[in-house]
């Protein structure tokens, strides 16, 4: 439905036209009567033009618009159709439209503004192609300006139609397999103790009470001795991800912001965890709201829930400057994320990953307090800090990399100093760059903290 904003507006052209008519009439009255007719003819013409616009405006008020919603994987080209239907018999010519959409989204195909004609009893369709980006992005409303043939008058209005582009993180199957292989060879999910699990640990002599299904019958056939296969006890099969989604995390090139990078890492690890059937959950602290899975879920359901939560995230410009390192809003949202995490975390020991970026002293305090609180409840907490400059270097020409590194080196050092300070407070922290793959992060956790 269209919402009327203003009445028909007069442009400077119409004013000039009126002034010309006034001159002709005045001169006609004073000197040459024939010119009165010319002046009046111009006025009649102007009135006719306005009459047409009035009709077109009435028709526009009866038009309806719709915007389709689309879903995809980040990086893909997603198409959205904008359709404006004219049910009247009046053709609407010279309708200038401007389609609004999330400023964080990039249009790669189609036009965001156009001069269109809406035929009578017909419709006009505009197809827009967006490069999908993680999260939910609003398309619409549509601003419209109608003009007459000479743009003497204009009529401004707007269609309230809204559509959405929703995208989930892209996961490389290769990376997930590598992660799978890597974690089998390291100890991320290994206790190095025998027990219930899926991975082979060792063989030993059969003891009374052992499950007969675990007897190695081939060995018995060869050695005539009963031995059983021992499986490695898996210690960590509940993982919660907390991702800082405030505006400090959404700076950087399109698709390569720390938030998107973190979401990709989360999605990759979640995919791996889904193969293993582990429980997992996600909490995102946005600028104005918390996005979260309802609880820790396992397997494909858990993976789907995490993808859905990431896809529901909405980019916001935030109320504070990106330079404000100690934003109160950010601290509040992280505390709210902690509260949500405590709601969904089970009593059992869980592995908690917190993804957040560089900040000031207050941010440092907030993070260490969150990590401490979660650790006190028996959870294993890791804070992953993406180094901003490694993201923002993307998109520069090759010669620019070196200059950027020199000029932004102080900033890089400050961010790494932040990581050090956090470590100094006993928090397990790893600094990551845009080029680090999930496997590398897991290995960092393994090697730096010798997780057992």
């Amino acid at each position, binding site marked *: 439905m269209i919402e009327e904003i203003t009445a028909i507006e007069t442009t400077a052209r119409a004013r000039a036209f009126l002034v010309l008519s006034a001159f002709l009439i*005045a001169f006609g009255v*004073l000197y040459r009567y024939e010119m009165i007719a010319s002046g009046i003819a111009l006025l009649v013409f102007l009135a006719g033009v306005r009459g047409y616009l009035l009709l077109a405006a009435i028709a526009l008020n009866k038009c309806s618009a719709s915007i389709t919603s689309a879903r995809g994987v980040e990086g893909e080209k997603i198409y959205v159709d904008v359709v404006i239907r004219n049910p009247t018999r009046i053709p609407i010519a010279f309708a200038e439209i401007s389609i609004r959409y999330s400023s964080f989204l990039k249009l790669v195909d189609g036009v965001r503004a156009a001069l269109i004609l809406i035929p009578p009893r017909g419709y006009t369709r505009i197809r827009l192609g967006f490069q999908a980006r993680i999260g939910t992005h609003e398309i619409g409303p549509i601003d419209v300006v109608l003009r007459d043939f000479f743009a003497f008058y204009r009529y401004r209005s707007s269609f309230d139609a809204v559509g959405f582009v929703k995208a989930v993180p892209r996961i490389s199957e290769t990376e997930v397999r590598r992660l799978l292989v890597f974690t089998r060879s390291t100890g991320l999910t290994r206790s190095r103790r025998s027990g219930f699990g899926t991975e082979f640990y060792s063989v030993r002599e059969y003891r009374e009470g052992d499950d007969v299904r675990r007897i190695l019958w081939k060995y018995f056939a060869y050695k005539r001795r009963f031995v059983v296969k021992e499986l490695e006890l898996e210690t960590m099969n509940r993982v919660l991800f907390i991702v800082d989604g405030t505006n400090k995390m*959404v700076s950087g090139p399109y698709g390569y912001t720390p938030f998107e990078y973190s979401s990709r890492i989360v999605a990759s690890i979640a995919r791996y965890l889904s193969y293993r059937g582990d429980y997992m959950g996600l909490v995102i602290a946005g600028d104005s709201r918390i996005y979260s899975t309802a609880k820790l879920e396992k397997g494909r359901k858990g993976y789907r829930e995490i993808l859905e939560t990431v896809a529901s995230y909405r980019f916001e410009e935030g109320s504070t400057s990106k330079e404000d390192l100690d934003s109160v809003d950010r601290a509040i949202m992280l505390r709210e994320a902690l509260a949500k995490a405590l709601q969904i975390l089970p009593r059992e020991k869980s592995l908690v990953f917190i993804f957040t970026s560089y900040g000031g002293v207050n941010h440092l305090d907030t993070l260490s307090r969150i990590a401490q609180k979660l650790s006190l409840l028996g959870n294993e907490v890791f804070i992953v800090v993406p180094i901003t400059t490694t993201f923002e270097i993307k998109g520069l020409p090759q010669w620019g990399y070196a200059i950027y590194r020199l*000029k932004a080196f102080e900033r890089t050092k400050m961010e790494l100093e932040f990581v050090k300070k956090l470590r100094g407070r006993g928090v397990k922290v790893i600094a990551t*760059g*845009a080029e680090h793959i999930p496997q590398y992060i897991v290995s960092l956790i393994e090697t730096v903290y010798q997780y057992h």
Partner: protein
Amino acid sequence: MKNEKAVAAVTMATMLALIAIGLIALAEKGPPQILVFIGASPYNTGPIGTFKLVELLKSRYPNTYTISSIQEMENLLRGGDRCLYIVISPEIGYNNSDAATIVNSLRECKHASVLIADESTYSNSLLRELGSSIRVAGSIIIDNVNGPYVYTFITIPSNSSNNMTYYLRLDIASKLLVNGGQVHVVGYAETGDVVAAEEVSELGIHVFVIGDGSIFLNQVLESNITSYRDFAIALIDYLCKFDASCRIVLDGSRYPGATPESLHSMVYMYSDPITLALSFIARLLHPATWLPPAIEFSNNVFRSISSVYSLSVIVSLIITVAVYMFLKRRIFIVADQRLEEQKEIESYVTGDLRDAILRGRIKLSKQDFETLFSIVNTVTQTLYGLELCDERLLSVIPKRDAAEKYLNRMCKLYKKALGRSFLPIVLSWNRTTAKMIRESEEFLSMLGQTIYGEKGVEYILMR
């Protein structure tokens, strides 16, 4: 909440058109006819009017009315308990119709009275219609001593025995004819002529007649002699029987009107100066006075303009500018710009630096060289545990010969940057740093590191 907007029910243009039509209509109708009532009219505020009597009566009897035509009397007295009709020195006679209307109106009242103070014979036809036997003779009473200003004794009867007798001087009075009937003579002139009489007529109307109206004039009532005023009050009280609800009608229809101009200097006898001044201003303001000359003047101006081409153009331009100013003030003009397109945001913490690099507006300084040195130094420290200027470094790195020159230069420039060396004396840090960046890349690539790639040396620091 919606903004309240004032909506004009009648537009300014309509208002102006209506005003123009009104002015033309008034001008067509002609100037206002301002008339003054001559004689003892109750509307006459001059010395010989009876306006003061009206005021006096209104203060005692609120239901006191003045009429300018006999028709106004219809229904005025209907249902009244006590009514009084007064006519003083009429200058127009009563025809049968007028007299009948007055009588019929009086008969609608329960107790009707009539006071006639007349020295002429104009009121006799009314007396006849009233069924009274009293008549005004119309002949002036002349006293041998005072001439036409005769002294009279007029007694106002009372219910009690205290009848009040007033000794009054009349001005050109007429004697009354009282033939038969139930006439009660109440006033005599010193000459013996009857000047005041009363009777209840055949129709039951109480009629009181005085042969002179001058005793009720403004100049008499305003004079220092209070006996006339007292007489007037006593007489009205007698006729109204002290009933405050008494309806009194003063007939103002029996006097001709005249324009102030026709009266010349006599006008002050019939109207006061303020009324005259106001009537003069009203005449002056009337469109009939000024509109025709104004139109005539504008016609002349228009004719003189239209006869000259250049003047026509100038006036047309002035009118055009006036129209433009009017449009500018009255019609809201919008700037017809294209709709603002949706902007796409890519925000960066180091946005300014990125922009400067992309636009090629970057200058390298001594500090940048120090940073470069620090980066390469960090790499050698991390990989080999040795400072960049440590001589032992050459022994552990591959491609020693190629690196030696580079290391020497770096260390020399570093000393210069720190101020420990003067050499080289002339140096452009911008060019030198740019050159050393290229050489550092070659050196770092020998160590398996880079500052030219996306995954650069900072990844070493993250370990």
